């Protein structure tokens, strides 16, 4: 095995060991799962943003179908677990608020400009994509601010959470699978025209579903991203002298306690750390990567969109991972609302993207 690969593996083990030493075995295991998420996302180039854009621009639903396969597989694994271990495992269930509708729409639009959703931004930043490296700090800032304003957005009103699991997991699973099948059927003619389904999409969906189920088993909750990202922002501002005591989100339980704890105690943060490194290792596994630097204007637009991406993700109770994947695989109706609204937002985002200087293929090679 080349020395480069040994070093990459040693780095991964060192990360898991360090987190375990600092925060315990559960956090170490979650870091390990994060490494898996990052490696699979990067290795299979599994992107929610790209999948949607491919459909919107070229009517190629391969990526969309891969996401539906992921949702179907993960739901099949997770819903029975959530139903049978309701005290130990908790799903991602959120209300159907006005903030969810608007936030998901904005997120869908922004993710086309940042060329990455929540998981996409992290894995591409880990792999060294200049665009995502520039987006990450504003994504952090936006998530922090969005969380801080979340109580005010939620107070605008809406409907209470709809948790289909209350009708039993077989019915919840049947409804979830029917939803996935319906979306797949709507795009069936285009799928036939697009040719064979690339293997990387299928492999990515299967592996991510397994990892998502393992995450639920270890953490007791679905995989999430933006809570940790917002926490990093809150930590940074607290270090700069900001007092979170009066903040309606970060100043109240349980978030205030998490802000006071070391960051390695936070479930989503350690998974994110693993994801970043996993993507880095996967991108360097076969040797050095070639990177093209987008124009300064493109970087600036992406950074601005990153702020919207982070902010809207907290309005909408999560990103493509916490709300779309976590919500739907928890049989929470908010996941489907998020899906619909973010897709509509992406239709706008794709058009905006065309107006900006985005040379095809120059973002990250």
């Amino acid at each position, binding site marked *: 095995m080349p020395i480069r690969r040994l070093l990459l593996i040693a780095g991964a083990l060192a990360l898991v060991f360090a987190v375990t030493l600092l925060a315990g*075995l*559960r956090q170490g295991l979650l870091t390990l799962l994060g490494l898996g998420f990052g490696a699979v996302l990067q290795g299979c180039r599994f992107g929610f943003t790209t999948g949607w854009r491919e459909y919107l621009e070229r009517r190629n639903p391969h990526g969309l179908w891969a996401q539906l396969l992921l949702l179907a597989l993960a739901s099949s694994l997770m819903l029975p677990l959530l139903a049978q271990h309701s005290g130990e495992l908790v799903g991602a269930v959120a209300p159907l608020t006005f903030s969810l509708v608007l936030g998901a729409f904005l997120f869908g639009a922004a993710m086309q400009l940042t060329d990455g959703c929540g998981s996409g931004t992290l894995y591409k930043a880990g792999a060294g994509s200049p665009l995502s490296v520039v987006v990450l700090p504003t994504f952090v800032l936006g998530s922090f601010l969005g969380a801080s304003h979340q109580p005010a957005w939620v107070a605008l009103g809406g409907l209470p959470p709809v948790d289909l699991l209350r009708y039993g997991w077989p019915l919840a699973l049947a409804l979830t699978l029917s939803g996935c099948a319906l979306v797949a059927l709507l795009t069936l003619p285009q799928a036939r025209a697009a040719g064979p389904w690339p293997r990387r999409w299928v492999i990515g969906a299967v592996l991510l579903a397994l990892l998502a189920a393992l995450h639920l088993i*270890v*953490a007791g*909750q679905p995989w999430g991203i933006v809570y*940790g990202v917002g926490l990093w922002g809150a930590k*940074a501002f607290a270090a700069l002298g900001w007092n979170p005591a009066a903040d309606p989100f970060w100043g109240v339980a349980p978030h205030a306690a998490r802000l006071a704890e070391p*960051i390695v105690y936070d479930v989503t943060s350690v998974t994110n750390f693993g994801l970043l490194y996993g993507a880095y290792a996967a991108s360097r596994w076969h040797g050095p990567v070639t990177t093209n630097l987008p124009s300064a204007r493109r970087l600036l637009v992406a950074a601005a969109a990153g702020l919207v991406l982070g902010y809207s993700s907290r309005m909408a109770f999560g990103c493509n991972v916490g709300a779309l994947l976590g919500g739907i695989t928890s049989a929470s109706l908010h996941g489907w609302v998020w899906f619909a609204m973010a897709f509509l937002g992406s239709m706008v985002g794709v058009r905006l993207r065309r107006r900006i200087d985005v040379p095809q293929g120059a973002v990250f090679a």
Partner: protein
Amino acid sequence: MNTNLRLRRFRRFTALFWLGFTVLILLDAFSSRVYRPEPPPIALGSGQAPGGGHCSGR
């Protein structure tokens, strides 16, 4: 500006960014002094409710 030079500068910026990121995490890990009983390694079968933060609102 020469593309290679821009790229080299950006790579240097990226390296510094990740270095700073790592240093901040380490500083935070070693400066926070909050006692927390270690949770069981796996939530399933632990008999305890999960206490982690999640973007869905918890």
